[in-house]
């Protein structure tokens, strides 16, 4: 127990999961983001999970219009947005209805009683009022008329009723900031910036924020519990929060910079959940980024490839259905051996599927989804911050080996945020590209003997005029060739070039554990968080289990086979119906087993843990 500034008693917690839930129009994403920022500033480690409705703005008060933002923060390493919610803030009945199932028994639920009108209860499909029918008995219920309290707080600013009620989220935020002993200054600054043109709105929102905070401080009649979550012990340095999208955008730019390229040309067509990358990069014009919103995904990759041909870093991005459309052009990138980065923010499928829900079911597509033998590099990012490094690595491999690189993220990574230590620029890798300029002995497909990469000969360079295309090319001259042996040779060299990259990437390490033992859990992509937590917990329980997390999916790390074979069992949790597991079985003939979750939602730690226990029980 510690005491707050005013002397209230604060219980110490290691980590807490809060979920803000309300109508799409209630500003829950902003509320969550601000809480995240203040929490990051307080020095906690954290992970977030925004959960948008599928509809843009569904009718107010309906269950399918509910928007939620979950944050998990703590004083130790935080890897997931949390299995269960400790505190649920429900701004209306629909939000309560949709989210209650994730609240742990004994957890706290804060509701705005002002919104629990008959109409809203009916819209949410409640036959009776849950605040009164005893159904919330298993939880700590904090009933507050936030609507009224907000209206009171903002009264001086002369807003319309509608505008005034829009400040409810700041009141709730104020209360939660008090509850966890967070500062409010960053939020105040943000409100002043956001409403610079309408200062009365800034003031009203700040008043609501302060009122919520003050309410906690002074609610002596029915005191609200206050907590403290101590700062996490993390590496020293300067920090910020990043979403996967931001880290990815900056990583791509950092890659272009490290390669010494003047321009990053990004061709894309909007699609959920990939669009935020387009939006972020569109704001980086001053940094040499040119964005092109194409007429479709095919034009998007076409333009990116054209840009790479002309000496820029060409990047394109989409989600599964859009990537499907790019696969023909991707084959051209393989055939012409041009650098290209293709980002896939995966979402639930097949077909349109559940566009706003996360999944990692496009691994097959990335590895095998083109006509003919067309090998390329496939990488996957594990966390929002990891997107930065993986993006730089994608650029390095694309430019060094003259190859398309597919970088897999997903809807979760795209939107989730975490604290991120801003790298020292000097510590970043540098891999300057050397365009070919010397005409003597130049042929467009003569390879570097070590990397097997062909030269990057950019239009505008005198003396290097040449023609390339998708028809098979002669190994020596690069001219069109239908020669049977040449085709065999070219097929082999294309494969060898990608396979050879295994020599230029790190040996696979273990995220937890050591080689040898009963069980290894192998993951890739955004399942990193739940897997690492589950394996840690399992190890704490004394189970013999390790964790391997793959960044490189093609080529696979050269020691991976030996590593896997050192374990008795291999368990592969994936947010798909079993894809990496197929790849590992084929590559190493290890009897890897799948652990599949296809629900449009990240694994819970518990689910992986159960998988581990079951796998060990079998053996």
């Amino acid at each position, binding site marked *: 127990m510690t005491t707050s500034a005013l002397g209230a008693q604060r219980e110490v917690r290691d980590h807490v999961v809060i979920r803000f839930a309300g109508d799409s129009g209630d500003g829950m994403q902003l509320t969550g983001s601000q809480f995240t920022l203040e929490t990051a500033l307080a020095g906690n480690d954290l992970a977030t999970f925004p959960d948008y409705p599928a509809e843009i703005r569904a009718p107010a008060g309906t269950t399918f219009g509910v928007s939620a933002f979950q944050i998990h923060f703590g004083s130790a390493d935080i890897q997931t947005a949390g299995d269960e919610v400790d505190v649920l803030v429900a701004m209306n009945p629909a939000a309560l209805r949709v989210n209650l199932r994730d609240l742990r028994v004994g957890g706290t639920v804060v509701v705005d009683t002002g919104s629990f009108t008959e109409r809203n209860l009916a819209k949410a499909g409640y036959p009776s009022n849950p605040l009164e029918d005893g159904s919330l008995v298993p939880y700590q219920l904090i009933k507050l008329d936030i609507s009224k309290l907000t209206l009171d707080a903002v009264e001086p600013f002369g807003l319309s009723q509608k505008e005034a009620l829009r400040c409810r989220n700041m009141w709730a935020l104020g209360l939660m900031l008090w509850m966890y002993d967070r500062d409010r200054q960053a939020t105040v600054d943000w409100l002043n910036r956001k409403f610079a043109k309408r200062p009365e709105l800034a003031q009203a929102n700040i008043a609501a924020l302060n009122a919520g905070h003050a309410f906690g401080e002074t609610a002596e009649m029915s005191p609200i519990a206050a907590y403290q979550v101590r700062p996490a012990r993390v590496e020293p340095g300067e920090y910020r929060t990043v979403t996967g999208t931001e880290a990815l955008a900056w990583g791509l730019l950092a890659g272009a910079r490290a390669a010494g*390229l003047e321009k990053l040309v990004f061709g894309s067509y909007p699609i959920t959940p990939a669009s935020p990358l387009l939006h972020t990069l569109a704001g980086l014009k001053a940094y040499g980024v040119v964005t092109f919103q194409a007429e479709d995904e095919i034009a998007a990759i076409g333009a990116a490839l054209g840009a790479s041909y002309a000496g*820029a870093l060409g990047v394109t991005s989409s989600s599964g259905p859009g990537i499907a459309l790019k696969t023909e052009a991707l084959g051209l990138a393989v055939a*012409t051996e041009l650098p290209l980065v293709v980002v896939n923010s995966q979402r639930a499928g097949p077909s349109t599927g559940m566009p706003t829900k996360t999944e990692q079911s496009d691994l097959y597509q990335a590895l095998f989804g083109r006509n003919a033998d067309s090998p390329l590099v496939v990488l996957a990012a594990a966390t929002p911050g990891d997107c930065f490094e993986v993006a730089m690595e994608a650029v390095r491999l694309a430019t060094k080996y003259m190859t398309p690189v597919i970088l897999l993220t997903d809807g979760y990574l795209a939107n989730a945020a975490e604290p991120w230590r801003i790298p020292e620029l000097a510590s970043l890798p540098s891999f300057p590209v050397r365009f070919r300029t010397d005409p003597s002995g130049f042929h467009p497909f003569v390879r570097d003997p070590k990397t097997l990469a062909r030269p990057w000969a950019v239009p505008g360079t005198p003396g290097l005029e040449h023609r390339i295309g998708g028809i098979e090319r002669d190994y020596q001259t690069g001219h069109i060739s239908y020669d049977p042996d040449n085709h065999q040779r070219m097929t082999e060299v294309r494969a060898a070039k990608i396979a050879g990259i295994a020599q230029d990437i790190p040996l696979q390490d273990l995220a937890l554990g050591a080689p040898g033992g009963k069980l290894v859990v192998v993951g890739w992509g955004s399942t990193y968080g739940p897997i690492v937590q589950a394996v840690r917990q399992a190890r704490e329980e004394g189970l013999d289990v390790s964790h391997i997390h793959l960044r490189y999916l093609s080529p696979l790390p050269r020691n991976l086979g030996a590593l896997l074979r050192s374990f008795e069992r291999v368990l592969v949790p994936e947010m798909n119906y079993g894809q990496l597991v197929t790849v590992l079985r084929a590559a190493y003939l290890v009897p890897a087993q799948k652990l599949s979750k296809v629900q449009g939602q990240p694994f819970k730690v518990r689910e992986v843990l159960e998988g581990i226990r079951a796998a060990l029980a079998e053996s």
Partner: protein
Amino acid sequence: MTAASPPVQPLASKDYASDQEVRWCPGCGDYAILKAVLKTLADLSVPRERTVFVSGIGCSSRFPYYVSTYGFHTIHGRAPAIATGIKLANPELDVWVITGDGDGLSIGGNHLLHVLRRNVNLQIILFNNEIYGLTKGQYSPTSRQGTRSPSTPTGSVDYPVSPGAFALGAGARFIARSIDTLQAHLVSVLKRAHQHRGASFVEVFQNCVVFNDAVFAEFTEKAVAPEAQLQVEHGEPLLFGKDKTKGLRLNPATLQLEVVTVGQAGVTERDILIHDERNRTLALLLLGLKPPAFPMALGVIYCDPAPSYEEAVYAQVPPGASAARADLEKLLHQGQTWTVAG
């Protein structure tokens, strides 16, 4: 180092030809278009290293292999998109897109629409032979109704699209037409296309001797040419015929053009419409003329320049913007940050 640069020799047509053997069928109209393009390049002395030919797939799209500049033989229908990327990466490059009636108007129709709409500064030459040559003669979107082909043994039933009308509807700002065998005319049209800033669209009637021989004979045959071709010139009256006595007049009641003969029925040269290449309505009317009732309109039918796409894109880029020299320090630190002490 101050080595004297070698004396600049003007390049000739042959200097723009690559060392690759040309592989079209003997007698194919593509040879003539290649010749005209090479002559255009030579006449304009374009620097080879800054010129790029981009094509899709088709007999016509083999074109880049035969030119000694940079060349990219891409995939079916996508050349406009790839060319747009090239221009975005380096607006200084001089880009020609080579496409066919199948490549550009069947699979590639959407990209053609958007490259024209955006007005990317490049030249597009559409080789219209009203057939799929490379895949052995299926009908194409420009084939006339009733075309018998391997895929339409009883005759095609689709209404053909008019490349010019399509381009106009797409918002093209330069639309011209010529014929493979009309060398001098074709060269002059190509020069105008090259000179135009923005997307210039040139339809060339091209004879496929193997699968659609003589499909344009109605207006390309030497014997009928004077009566069947109207070569338009900006500011000049729309006259044609052997003695240039036939002309076009607007019927204001029907809003249609009609053919009249100067000196007959009281018609004088003053009744004849003057070609105004900036007039969109006139362009629509001219593009719609069809032999035998009307002559085929050739030349620069529409030209109404406006700023190009990449100009507008780069106008939004702060000067000195460069990824290589990007101020990452600034970018990564902007917004809220905090420091954890060591």
